Each structure stands twice: as structure tokens, then as C-alpha cells.
């Protein structure tokens, strides 16, 4: 027994040594990025707020521009930088943005998606779909409005599967408590499972340093690769108060797709816009069934929760955020990442000229 064991020990040490060496030799670049292998998570202007360069040619035209030539150029550009499909333009019969009010979260979610063209507009048969709710901690159930409403999330899972999605994975990276516990505490795990979706634990090894070709402040960051590689990403934030960003909305919710988040907080607005330019969710569904009006994003006090019974959906994340802002008696211009995202032509914050449907059920 002794000799065999010594040999096993030796083999074990050699294997582990080789594994470590192999790990340290492999460059940190992502398979979909062409950036320099050794580049660390980097910013273009460290620390202080970067001036937004208005003259910089925009890489992605707003999804609303119906010019076929531009659309094509955009698609090519994004195909180089991301496997995720370009957010689709609005078909003629559908609303640009729909806000549905009613007491049944499932019904208003279904109606909101239907009003902007139905899930088939976003999800094609065989698609790999990722739903990104806000499950920021394991402290409170969804009634405290710090995590997205489970029924809203589950309804989107059902709709995506009905549209033919090959699989629907739901995930977030909580900043407090383990993901497993946060998934359970929020009620989302149970609802998603019942709807036929899968809760995915965001594994450490899938965060890969990825370039942000359109970024103004950030050149690259650690992104969760499956989100960049999915065919469709559905952003399902909950409307929450936040002292620095002012509000935690759809743009802020994309903080759950990256690592090293505390470092984002210098120049937060522009950096969230940069992250948004890389993730580009096809569909954004705002859960304003309950809104957290103060002490966000963590919450914990039912007195801070306001029942608004509303779900807002659009392919345009910026428009959804711009629509939600007045519900907190604020202006979209006050929210750094809304203005920064608009400057980068990631969407529309001026809702005046858009086709917005208000529906009561």
C-alpha cells in the first residue's frame, strides 16, 4: 500500500503542477475578442469623470433608425464584437414601448411583450436565451422590492420557451450572500423552475477580460461570457432607488454581468453606458410592480416600497429607463447612465416622438 500511495502522491503533485502551469500560460483574452492578451481591466480615463465626446462617430445607430444601409453596417460591426444578436427594430404594427398597468404581474408582462411585437420578435426557435433579473442579495423576499418580481421573470421564461427557445437560463451575481441562497430567497428559483427555465450559477471561470470597442471610459472589463455569447439577452430590472446612480434601472442592472463592480463606481454613469454598449440586451422588461423608493438598492423596509402595478417593455433599454424615471419624480436627464447611453446612441431618452402604448388591464 505504501509504495502505491507514494506513486499516487507523486502523480498528484505533477498533475497539479502541470495544471497550474497550463493555467498561468493561457492568455486572458476571450474567444470573441481580439484584444491584447495581457491587458488588465482597464479604463481610458482613470478616476475622474470622462468628458463625453460628442464628435466621436457613433458605432451603433439607434435601433429606431429605419435606414437599411445603416442597419446592415451595424449588424456587421456587432457581429465582430459579440455573438449576441442586434436588438431588433420595431415592426410597423408594434409599439416602440409599452407600459401596462394591472394587478396581475403575469398578465401585464404578457401584454407588454405582446404590445411590442410578441416574444417571437426577439426569440427564434433554437435560441439560447438568458434572462437577467435583479437578484442583488439574499436578505429579503421580493415583497421588499430589492429583487425582481418572480412572476414577471417566470412569465418571460414561459414566453421565450413558447417562442421556441432551446433553453432559457436565469442568473444574477448577488453582491451579498451566495447566489444559491439569493435565488431561493427571492422566490425566483421556484418560479423559474416551474416555468421550465434553469437557474444558472455564474461560475468564476466564465468571467473573461473582454474589450468594449465602443466604450468611452472603459476599454475592457471582466464580462460573464455566456451572456455575451447568448443569442438573446432579456434584461429584467426592478425599479429601485440608488443614491449615486439615483435609480437602479435597466442599465444599472447590467452590473450583474460583470465582475470587479466596486471599481465601476468612479464615473459610474459613463461606465454603465459602456457596459451596456457591450451587452446590448434585445429586450428590456422593467418590473415596476413594486418600486423601492428609498434606501436602495438593498431595501429591507416595507415602508420604502410603493406598489405601482406596472410593467414596461421595449427593445430599447434607454427608453425603458427614461420612461421609468418620472415614476420616481425625477427626470431622465438626472440619471447619468441614461444621458451617457443616449450620447452613445444606445437608445432614446426623448420619449416625445416615440410610439408609446399605455395599457390598463
Amino acid at each position, binding site marked *: *500500500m*505504501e509504495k502505491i*500511495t*507514494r506513486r499516487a*502522491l507523486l502523480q498528484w503533485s505533477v498533475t*497539479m503542477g502541470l*495544471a*497550474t502551469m*497550463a*493555467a*498561468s500560460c*493561457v*492568455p*486572458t*483574452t*476571450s*474567444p470573441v475578442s481580439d484584444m491584447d492578451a495581457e491587458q488588465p481591466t482597464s479604463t481610458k480615463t482613470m*478616476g*475622474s*469623470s470622462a468628458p463625453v465626446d460628442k464628435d466621436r462617430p457613433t458605432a451603433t445607430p439607434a435601433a429606431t433608425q429605419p435606414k437599411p444601409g445603416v442597419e446592415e453596417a451595424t449588424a456587421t460591426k456587432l457581429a465582430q464584437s459579440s455573438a449576441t444578436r442586434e436588438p431588433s427594430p420595431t415592426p410597423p404594427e408594434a409599439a416602440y414601448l409599452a407600459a401596462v398597468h394591472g394587478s396581475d404581474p403575469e398578465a401585464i408582462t404578457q401584454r407588454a411583450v405582446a404590445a411590442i411585437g410578441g416574444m417571437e420578435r426577439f426569440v427564434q426557435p433554437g435560441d439560447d436565451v438568458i434572462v437577467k433579473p435583479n437578484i442583488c*442579495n*439574499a*436578505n429579503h423576499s421580493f415583497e421588499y422590492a430589492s429583487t425582481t418580481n418572480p412572476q414577471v421573470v417566470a412569465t418571460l421564461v414561459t414566453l421565450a420557451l413558447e417562442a421556441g427557445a432551446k433553453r432559457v437560463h436565469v442568473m444574477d451575481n448577488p*453582491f*451579498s*450572500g*451566495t*447566489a*444559491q*441562497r439569493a435565488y*431561493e*430567497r427571492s422566490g425566483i428559483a421556484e418560479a423559474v423552475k416551474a416555468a421550465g427555465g434553469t437557474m444558472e*450559477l455564474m*461560475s*468564476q*471561470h*466564465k468571467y*473573461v477580460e473582454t474589450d468594449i470597442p465602443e466604450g468611452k471610459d472603459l476599454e475592457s472589463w471582466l464580462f460573464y*461570457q455566456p451572456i455575451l455569447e447568448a443569442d438573446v439577452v432579456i434584461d429584467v430590472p426592478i425599479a429601485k432607488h*440608488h*443614491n*449615486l446612480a439615483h435609480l437602479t434601472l435597466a442599465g444599472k442592472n447590467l452590473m450583474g454581468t460583470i465582475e470587479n463592480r*466596486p*471599481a465601476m*463606481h*468612479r*464615473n*459610474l454613469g459613463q461606465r454603465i453606458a459602456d457596459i451596456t454598449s457591450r451587452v446590448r440586451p434585445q429586450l428590456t422588461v422593467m418590473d415596476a410592480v413594486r418600486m423601492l423608493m428609498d*434606501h*436602495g*438598492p*438593498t*431595501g*429591507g*423596509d416595507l415602508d*420604502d416600497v410603493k406598489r405601482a402595478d406596472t410593467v414596461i417593455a421595449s427593445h430599447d433599454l434607454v427608453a425603458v429607463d427614461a420612461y421609468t424615471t418620472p415614476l420616481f419624480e425625477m427626470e431622465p436627464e438626472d440619471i447619468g447612465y441614461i444621458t451617457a447611453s443616449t450620447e452613445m446612441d444606445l437608445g432614446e431618452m426623448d420619449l416625445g416622438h416615440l410610439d408609446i402604448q399605455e395599457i390598463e388591464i
Partner: protein
Amino acid sequence: MKYVYWRRARQIVQILSLLAFFALVVYTFRDVQRPVNAQGLMRLDPLAALVTSLSTRRWIAAFIPALLLTMATLILGRFWCGWLCPLGTILDVVPAPSEGAGDARSGWRGVKYGLLFLILFAAFWRNTTLLILDPLAIFVRSVTALVIPGLNWLIVQLEGTLYKAGILRGVVDAVDAALQGTIISYRQPYYQGVLPLSLLLGGILALNLFKKRAWCRYLCPLGGLLSLLSRASWLKRRAAPSCVECSACEKVCPMGTIDGDEMYASDSGECILCMDCAADCPQGAIRFEGDVSIAWDKGYEPTRRQLLTALGASVGGLALLRVTPSTHHPDPRRLRPPGVKEEELLATCIRCGACMRACPSHGLQPSWTESGIEGLWTPILVPRLGHCDYSCTACGDTCPTGAIPSLSLEEKRETPIGKAYIDPELCIAWSGRSPCIVCEEMCPLPGKAIILEEKEVQDDRGGTRTLQVPVVQHERCIGCGTCENKCPVNGEAAIRVIVDPL
């Protein structure tokens, strides 16, 4: 009776119990609540049971399994050491000299009794520091702070390599899913004092280079306790007259207790029932048989002098421990888990580190200097490495001795472990460098214990600007350390939790 089969059975039991005990430690991690954890292992420990009973002057009911093990030892001898002890099993597979290891009458064997008496006297003075040498505590602590974090790192590196190379993704996903929440944590764990922790474990393993199971022969205090009990054990090894004095048994004995000068007899206080001698005896002359007797003629029995020395050392050692500065003035970073009373903890903590394994944020760490030598490897929160989760009571639920009280979630949320203070020169907002509110944002208290105030602050170019700056409301702060953990400045955080100064 075929003793080769007994030996095979012993080897299988050893491997299974090592795996089971390893799994117990792994599953102690409080991702989701599990029915078993390392508590189950520590409750088997008669030394921990005896020490905590002496130091707290009460019987801790959780230690009933240890009582059963004690009774089993009176019948079977040191079977624990040979068949079950995880450290013993590891020492069986670590390289050791295979010849000439017999030293049946070595006086060094008495050292473990001296150490045992020292630990017991110290326990009577309400000190449990030397339980750092308890083999089960060493096992749980080493697996927690060394083995699992190392495996986690290696596996994630390997997964990342394969993932980036785009090969075997299905396999990697399956492995990752299977290990998430156990070997792989949602965040890589880091433990402070890896070097001293490794030195103790490494030293014990390295002793094997001199003599096989040298730790078990000479030093292990639990072995010492079980050895004293085993001297009266019922099951004893016998060499029959058919012995041809080939000395095969003497050579193979991992404890070196078979004495060629004494007709190949052995000490029932040192025999670990491994059956190697009986299995290897060409004559079949060795038997294990029932016999009511007490072995007390080996030359290294505990002596009155040893007892008195241990008593003196315990008193002197205690005095030295109690005149270190940390007892006079607490280190501001001695952040104990919620509800801990310092005196009670020092008298009850068996240094097993199960709480550190349970802590889901990996913030609970083995104290190195923060609680003095007396508190070596007792649990402290190091917020920079992990915060005290607002919805977690894992440490108190896991502690086998009650050194960390088991609090309800409501109690825990109202039990401060320290208070947060801001360092304005480091703080990004206070120093005027940039807007930053991460500490306020992350504060888990409903209504927040950190508020933001508009303030005109000096920036680093000599001008002024108006920024939101964080202000701690100390009467509300429970010192969970979430703010310190998330503070985005490099190195030391600009907001730090310290022992409540008031």
C-alpha cells in the same frame, strides 16, 4: 481468523472515513443549510469534550458521541487512531521509513501524556489554546483554510483554461455544476496565516520522515488520552508461543510498539489495532483476544513529576498569556462573530475552524495576532476578506461547543460585532476625488446605517466641490463589515470596522 482480511477491512474503513470526514468539512459551507457538517466530526472528540467540560464546568450535551467513543476505546483500545482518525490515515500514506522504526520503550512516548496534562490543567484555568494541537481540529482547520481554497483555485484555473480554449465545455460545465457550493465557492476563499497553518500541518507530516506515525506515537494529545484509556482496554494483542522470533511484526508495526526484547509483546496503550503485524506473521502467532488487565510497565508511564511539571507549566504559561498587551487592551480588529463573549470564547473555542468553513462570505478567519497568543486561531471577522452576511447565522449554528452562540436571525441582526469608521483622507468622496457612495449603497440595514450628506469638500487641486459624503450612524451600525468589504479603494479600506470604542 484471517488477519489479512481484517487489515484490508481496516484500510477500506480508513479511506471511507477520511472521505466522509472530508465531505463533512466541505458540506459545512453554508450555501444552503445541510443536515450534517463538521460539528458531527468534532463531537466525536473525547479530548475536546473533556477540555470544554473542565473549562466551562459543565457537560456539553453535544459531546455524547465522544462519550461513546471513550467507552468503545475501553473495550477496543486505540482503534480510533488506527481505523478512523483522518490525520492518522493521512500519516499512513505519507512517506515514512519502513525499516528500523521500532522504539517500543522510547521515553518520547511520554511526551504526549505531558502535553495532555498540560492541556487539561490549562482547561481547568479556562484556557483552551493548546487545542490547536487536537488532531481533529487540525484536520478541520487545515481542510478549511488550506485544502479547499487551494482546490478551489486550481479547479477554477483549470476550468478557465479549458473554457477560454473552448474545449470540453460540456464536461467543464458538468464538473463545475457538481462542485459549486462545495469545493468551489461563489467567491475564491482566502485565509490569513496560511504560512503558520501550513507549518503546523507540514511539520506533523514531516515528522513521518523520522518515524512512521511519529505524531501519533509521541505528541498527539488525543492519542495520549486514548492511550491512557487503552492501557485498560479489553481487546489486547498477544504473541503466541509458536512465534519464531522472525521480527516481521516489529518491522511492520506503524507505531513501533512491538518489542523484540520482550518476546514481541506490545503496549495496548500504543497499539492502534491496525492488524499489520497479525497479517504479516508467517506463523499466524499473533492474535487479538479479550483480556481484563491494565498494562503499566512500559517505562514511559505518566509520572508524578510529569504531572507536577504540567501543572507548573500551565500556571506559568497562563500567567505569560495573561500579561500580553492584548489582554490589557483589545486589538481594535478583534471582531468576534455576533453574540460572542470574549471570556466565554477563550474558554470554549476548540479551534476547529468549523465556523470559518461555514461562513458563506469567507470573512471569518483564524486569528493570528488579533486576539493574542491565547486566542490563536480563534475566529475573527476580517471584513476586507468577507463581510458578515445580514441573513446568515451559520457560525453560531455550526459551532460544536457553543463558543459562538446560536442566535436567531432577528437577534443576530441586532447584535453589533463592531462599528464602522470612515477615514476621510482615504475616502474617495470625503477627499474630493470623485463621487462615491458604495458603502452607503451596500449597507444592508433597512434604512441604512450610513447616510449621505451634501458637503463642500476640498479636492486634491486645492479647490472645493460639493459631493455626497458618507456618514456612519454609529447607534445603528452593527459592524457587519459589508461597507469595508466593498470599499473600492486599493489596500486598506476607507471605511473600517473596529471593536466598538464606546
